[in-house]
């Protein structure tokens, strides 16, 4: 949520610099050139309301939260005390660690499900390809709340799977799929799968079939062709998508709240508690800053991978 704001400000800033340059050049410029620089100015003024809006609505609150994390709420003096409290308490670190670990699990699950799914889709006849991708994309269109509650219908104690298992006599008591990390894992994987499958599918379609044919004529087995030619060619996209999935899962709130039943607090749920229950804005700000730094670092890696890939 913080990302769009900071992302937008990059090009905007450079445009401001460019506009300033044009003003300096205007005195000596030929008329045609002046018209061009005027247009730059016009553009700048047209964009100004939006720039102000972005700064006011997105950037200032973030800076404000960052300021809270290093200032005393009463005196306003700068302090690292909140960070020290944060580090001293094992509870926060444990929740952050659990969030990271669960995000890793979700990322691994989306890779294990998504890679074969994308690969299978590329092998289908074009018509079926559209159907399969359509099914993957459909999950984008269903509200995350509806999808999350749907998992209760499927995985709950009286849900479809448990009833089926008991009817078949496989188990005598319902298995607890929900209100633990497993339930959250299932729900989050479901939501995040398209973010991995769609880019991967596109990358796999771009792989030149002749590379695989030539590898075969050179004597390579199917196993080797896949692991030494096909897989490495899709690896940059896989890595970039996996990072994206990881970043997104760090901030999940609804799915852990519903499918975790409040028993498995993650970072977002913890912040909710800190702010709404305990009114500890400073600690919440510290957690936000930590999360933001981690997210931005990962986002930098993601961008780097994307550019390297392009």
């Amino acid at each position: 949520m913080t990302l769009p704001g900071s992302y937008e400000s990059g090009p905007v800033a450079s445009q401001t610099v460019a506009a300033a340059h044009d003003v300096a050049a205007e005195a000596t410029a030929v008329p045609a050139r002046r018209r061009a620089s005027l247009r730059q100015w016009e553009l700048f003024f047209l964009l100004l309301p939006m720039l102000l809006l972005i700064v006011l609505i997105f950037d200032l609150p973030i800076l404000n939260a960052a300021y809270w994390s290093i200032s005393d709420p009463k005196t306003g003096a700068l302090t690292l005390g909140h960070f020290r409290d944060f580090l001293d308490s094992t509870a926060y670190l444990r929740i952050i660690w659990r969030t990271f670990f669960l995000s890793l699990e979700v990322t691994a699950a989306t890779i294990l499900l998504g890679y074969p799914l994308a690969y299978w889709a590329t092998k289908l006849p074009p018509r079926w390809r559209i159907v399969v991708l359509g099914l993957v994309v459909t999950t984008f269109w269903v509200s995350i709340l509806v999808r999350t509650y749907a998992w209760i219908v499927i995985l709950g104690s009286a849900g479809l799977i448990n009833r089926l298992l008991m009817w078949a006599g496989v188990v005598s008591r319902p298995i607890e799929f929900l209100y633990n990390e497993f339930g959250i894992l299932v729900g989050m994987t479901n939501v995040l799968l398209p973010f991995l499958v769609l880019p991967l599918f596109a990358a796999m379609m771009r792989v030149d079939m002749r590379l695989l044919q030539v590898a075969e004529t050179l004597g390579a087995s199917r196993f080797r062709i896949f692991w030494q030619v096909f897989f490495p060619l899709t690896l940059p996209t896989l890595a970039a998508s996996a990072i994206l999935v990881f970043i997104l899962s760090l901030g999940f709130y609804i799915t852990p709240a519903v499918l975790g039943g409040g028993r498995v607090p993650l970072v977002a749920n913890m912040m909710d508690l800190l702010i709404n229950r305990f009114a500890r804005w400073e600690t919440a700000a510290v957690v936000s800053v930590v999360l933001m730094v981690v997210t931005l670092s990962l986002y930098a890696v993601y961008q780097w991978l994307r550019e390297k890939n392009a």
Partner: protein
Amino acid sequence: MTNVRFTHVTKAYGPLRAIDDVSISVKSGEFTTVLGPSGSGKTTMLSLIAGITRPTSGRIDLGDREITFVPAAERNIGLVFQSYALFPHMSIFDNVAFPLRVRGMGAAELSRRVGEALRLVRLEGLRQRKPHQLSGGQQQRVALARAIVFEPAILLLDEPLAALDRKLREEVRLEIRELQRKLGITTIMVTHDQEEALSLSDQVVLLSKGRVEQVGAPDEIYHRPSTRFAADFLGMANFIEGSYHEGHIVSPDGERFPCAPTNIAHGARVCGLLRPEDIRAGGEGGHLAGIVRDVVFLGETVRYLIELKSGRRLTANVAGARGRHVAGAGVSLSWDPKRVWILPDNSDRIPADGNAAVTERRTEKVSVVGR
């Protein structure tokens, strides 16, 4: 002794026969070119040899081993695609080492062999580069090194020069030929460029509509084509139709074209081929008189379009005769009667795809002659 043999091979895609009952054989150590217009089935033929596709019927042999249904990976054939198909994520060294690693070769021997192959194509210094850092010509040579490094039984080249610009094309062409001679490797190249086919090969297989039109040495197929299609595809051609009379072909208009005496029955309908470069255009004393209708300067030669009295037009390419005749001038044409080749197969199935295509190919060939 390696050789490739096709026995009644057909490859059908639905109702379309890309390869239609083809039987040919390629001698060991020779350079064979499969030549044909696009859609003639030449790439299908290459895929069949490489094992990328399987024939619908027929049998393919490699040496004394049938390979009709042997998987590509077990055929031991080096393939170079027109698009190079280098592995973009591997260095040049790793690209060339790939077929050796697949065969589980030890590091020392592998390094020696890769070095040798890269030396052959003069790219030793670039072993650590990635393919995208190389020029088109260099990439092509890497693909070549990768295809020969494992000492395959045969080398297949799919339009290897098509993606290069003209100057580079000639350079790489000479290199391929030299390399093939040095290694003595049986090589089969697919191309639509008759000049490439004529200059590189020991044997040319001319394909048309999935069928073999003619097989022969370049000069044989050029000077003694068996069909009109072959004559037309391999260069510019003047066709002289008429009936045979004592060392002459007599056209329906009564014009007499001298040709070498043969044992063809008198009065038989024949079609003779006279290549433009075999015609001399002089002031007088020739076999036939005509008027220059068009003069095209091509550098090494000048091409004249000459109209005979009957209205028939002949094309003559005259070497080093700049400005000798101008349009509208009267000329006298002569030729060595032995240079008139009477087509053994005088059926009219010239074009595989209609007259328009022939005209198109002709203009294309004019430029080729000009080079």
